[in-house]
């Protein structure tokens, strides 16, 4: 069932024998709940090291999708029958569960979208409605395209100016430079940065930036796509006013994203998409709009997906997000050591596992990331090659693209060993000496 490595016969079968494993976090037992991890690719055991792209799903989540359609399927909030009530309960139950998962004050602060990109577009569009020429929006050069382009569009529409945090040589947000330049100032209306970089793995000092944003009266938006799946999340501690994240990176289904917002802020924002369920009264001469979250959920929402995201939240909380974060930290430290033993390999971003999430992007002399990714795939190792939807960051780092290995709660030390060996093999294949 599991592809966890065989241990030497004379060592006890303790999970703590795996140096990358935290006491209490039994990776082998976790893996047994993920059916896909038992499959092979190209005749090799699958080594799935692309969880920053999307996570795999445990059996309970997979079954919950089928169970919803099998037993409770109906449209929500409008069907006057038993199944409609059950579907509505499942959907709203997902909302309450997600609210609890991130420590939201009330369920109505959770808006379901189709993904995190839509959540960020919702934020940019609705906050953008009050932007004027001379206003400033601040992002960072380390953002995913989905936290850059919606703000560029908002600035183009309104005449506001987009500014951004630079990074230090180590790959961390350069707060000192930002302070010298007065990056956040009285003209700043919105600050939007990622909690954890999807390329460098860096954990950004969101709380500090939020305090700075709030001191000038700006709204703090956080892209939590990589942070929420890896780190215990309490929105109040984070300091965010709006937090975007997605279901499929936290063992949930695709097709559902979340925009959490402080209720008073959400209530002050105009609608995003128009349609059914987001209205109060519609007349041909004009309409009034529902309060949040319905105001931002036009049309039939991702019902099964949102319901099952609640199941995913249950599953994660039972495992314990503290455990998830600790495992991520340990496996990242192990991988950083292994990868940096290879000649000519450059890790982008911090080379030590301090304030660092479970994504490691790297370049290797004379081997392009596509070639690296395909050679690794031929050995069953799934990584991502390219610019990971962060072209400006790659340009800033002076590289065209990179290979990214990313880890999650089911990643084993043996998978990291296979990665290091696969990278070394690829270097040799292209004529280098690893």
């Amino acid at each position, binding site marked *: 069932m599991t592809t966890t490595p065989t241990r030497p016969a004379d060592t006890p079968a303790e999970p703590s024998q795996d140096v990358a494993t935290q006491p209490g976090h039994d990776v082998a037992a976790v893996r047994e709940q993920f059916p896909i991890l038992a499959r092979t690719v*190209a*005749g090799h055991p699958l080594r799935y090291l692309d969880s920053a792209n999307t996570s795999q799903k445990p059996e309970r989540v997979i079954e919950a999708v089928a169970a919803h359609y099998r037993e409770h399927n109906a449209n929500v909030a409008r069907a006057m029958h038993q199944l409609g009530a059950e579907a509505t309960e499942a959907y709203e139950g997902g909302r309450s569960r997600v609210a609890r998962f991130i420590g939201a004050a009330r369920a109505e602060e959770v808006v379901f979208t189709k993904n995190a990109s839509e959540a960020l577009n919702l934020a940019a569009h609705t906050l953008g409605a009050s932007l004027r020429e001379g206003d400033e929006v601040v992002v960072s050069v380390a953002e995913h395209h989905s936290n850059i382009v919606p703000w560029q569009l908002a600035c183009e529409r309104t005449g506001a100016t987009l500014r951004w945090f630079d990074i230090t040589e180590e790959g961390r947000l350069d707060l000192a430079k930002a302070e010298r330049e007065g990056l956040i100032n009285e003209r700043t209306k919105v600050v939007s940065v990622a909690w954890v970089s999807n390329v460098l793995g860096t954990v950004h000092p969101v709380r500090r930036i939020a305090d700075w944003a709030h001191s000038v009266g700006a709204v703090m938006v956080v892209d939590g796509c990589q942070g929420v799946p890896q780190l215990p999340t309490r929105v109040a501690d984070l300091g965010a006013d709006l937090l975007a994240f997605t279901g499929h990176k936290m063992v949930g289904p695709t097709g559902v994203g979340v925009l959490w917002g402080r209720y008073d802020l959400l209530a002050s924002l105009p609608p995003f998409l128009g349609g059914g369920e987001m209205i109060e009264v519609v007349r041909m001469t004009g309409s009034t709009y529902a309060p949040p979250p319905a105001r931002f959920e036009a049309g039939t929402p991702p019902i099964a997906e949102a319901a099952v995201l609640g199941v995913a939240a249950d599953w994660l909380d039972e495992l314990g997000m503290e455990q998830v974060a600790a495992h991520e930290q340990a496996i990242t430290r192990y991988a950083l050591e292994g990868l940096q033993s290879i000649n000519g390999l450059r890790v982008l971003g911090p080379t030590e596992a301090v304030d660092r999430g479970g994504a490691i992007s790297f370049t290797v002399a004379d081997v*392009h*990331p*596509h*070639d690296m990714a*395909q*050679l690794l*795939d*031929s*050995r069953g190792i799934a990584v991502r*090659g*390219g*610019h990971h939807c962060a*072209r400006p960051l*790659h340009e800033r780092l002076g590289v*065209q*693209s990179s290979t990214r290995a990313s880890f999650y709660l089911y990643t084993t030390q043996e998978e990291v060993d296979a990665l290091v060996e696969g990278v070394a093999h690829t270097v040799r*294949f*292209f*004529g280098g000496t690893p």
Partner: protein
Amino acid sequence: MTNAVEEMYQEIILDHYRAKHHSGLRESYAAEVHHVNPSCGDEVTLRVHLDGGTVTDVSYDGVGCSISQASTSVMTDLVIGKDVDHGLALHEEFLTLMQGKGQVEPDEERLEDGIAFAGVARFPARVKCALLGWSAFKDAVLQAGAGDRRPEEG
């Protein structure tokens, strides 16, 4: 020990990747184009210089994987000094080979080193890499106005 992927990387491809032919941008050109692969970030700036119906030079500056770089290098060998029509016909043949899912038998007489890419057709994710330089060449030729004489290329 090799596998299907490693077999795809023919020695010819690796040779062209390590020492690209006709690389670099040169002056005197009829058209310049910039093509990108948004999904992976590969980019090429490519210039064609024409003399009547003849391709007198193809120069380029590209960044990308071994497949895209080697394919562009091979393409320049095949079209420089030849008729524009011949170059466009070779583009069609190479396109057919790439879209053939490994079922098309390439004509070595015409595609020469280009036949080394036959294995790439079995990996759909890499087909666009192999086509990057060829597509840029066709686009540049059309922008230079040389392709107008071939309505079937329209």
